[in-house]
């Protein structure tokens, strides 16, 4: 059996320590599998994704990613280069003037040269059907376009896993359909947070529900 990409054990976390959102959560993500993560609003789904990337640190429990235990900031930095997080609100993710610069931001952080990054930008945008968007102003894009560009910024880093936080939130049916087609064609393992049953039916291999701080 191939080792999991992520393995979280006994995760305990609370923004207010007396009211933990996660109480002993266990979670594994195998290569290539698409897992749906469901649960009520505020039950800790986004928190779990942030814990996987070390954007938050658990108060107890362990995070193992890509075959190694991760505790320090340096260790998690390597994780963030290999697992991409799509934020719930694309406006949180996009901050550069043009689409090209925003998509190049991640590859540049990974040490790519400007010309390598430019090639990655072209390839990624073409793959997502966004060819010609390079010079567009991110801020002026429609909500659906922003979501796809945000996905491009994540895919440009060639991650092995994708953590998608409500990817079809606020999308119209057409754009949602386009997103599903794109995601279904990607080889990466995925964690999908969504309230949309039809979306999950078409993509997810298995489902886990976050309830009372545990995954079931």
């Amino acid at each position, binding site marked *: 059996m191939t080792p999991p990409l992520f393995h979280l054990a006994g995760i305990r976390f609370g923004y207010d320590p007396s009211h933990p959102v996660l109480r002993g959560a266990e979670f594994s993500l195998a290569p290539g599998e698409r897992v749906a993560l469901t649960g009520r609003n505020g039950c800790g789904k986004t928190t779990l994704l942030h814990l996987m990337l070390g954007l938050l640190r658990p108060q107890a429990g362990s995070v193992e990613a890509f075959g190694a235990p991760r505790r320090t900031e340096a260790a998690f930095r390597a994780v963030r280069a290999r697992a991409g997080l799509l934020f719930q609100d694309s406006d949180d993710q996009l901050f550069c*003037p043009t689409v090209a610069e925003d998509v190049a931001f991640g590859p540049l952080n990974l040490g790519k040269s400007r010309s390598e990054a430019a090639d990655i930008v072209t390839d990624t945008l073409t793959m997502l059907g966004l060819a010609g968007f390079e010079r567009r*102003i*991110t*801020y*002026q894009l429609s909500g659906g376009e922003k979501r796809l560009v945000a996905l491009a910024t994540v895919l440009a880093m060639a991650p092995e896993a994708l953590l998608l936080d409500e990817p079809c939130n606020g999308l119209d049916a057409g754009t949602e359909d386009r997103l599903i087609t794109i995601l279904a064609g990607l080889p990466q393992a995925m964690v999908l947070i969504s309230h949309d049953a039809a979306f999950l039916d078409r993509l997810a291999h298995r489902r886990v529900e976050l309830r009372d701080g545990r995954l079931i």
Partner: protein
Amino acid sequence: MHIVDGVLSAPVLAGGTVLAVAGIARGLKTLEPDHLPRVAVLSSAFFVASLVHVPVGPTSTHMLLSGLVGLALGWAAFPAIAVALFLQAMVFGFGGLTALGVNIVNMAAPAVLVHYLCRPGLCRAEPAALFGWGLAAGTLAIALSVLMVGLALAASGRAFIPAAELIFVTHLPVMAIEGLLVGAAVVLARQVKPGLFDFTPVAPAWVEAGDD
């Protein structure tokens, strides 16, 4: 760059306070109430920038953004910066009440000057030259502020002159980086929202009547 209470001599404190009050009054006079939210936004950004540390070589500096505030606001930079510095003094203890006037003038006067020196060029600039104008504005604002801090110190006693020189030298990298940041911010603003810096403060008649 905030001067603390106790350093400056009484004439410098008094002079700074008078100039600050005059600058704030001038800024408020031409400030339309409709633009208040925008001025408040820049004032908050100025406040938040001071919490953001940007690495410079082995150390780090916090951002000031006075050049950007000046470009956007002109004379309204006076009240905007005054409010931010007042809040910084209260929340963090940077500067103090007696030195507040001098600190306001040191930061806001260069911002206003930058507005008149760099904004005309910035508004007409080709995209390629835009960054240069932003860079000039950011750098110049800090350079002038540091110079004024030095003057205020030197005017309060000869013993402060070495401190003033030290402040100038240690702020050379800050000037350069602030220039790069403001340059990038201006480039972004022009592309994303071309009208961002285009609100010329004009006072409608009823402001004159209703204010003060």
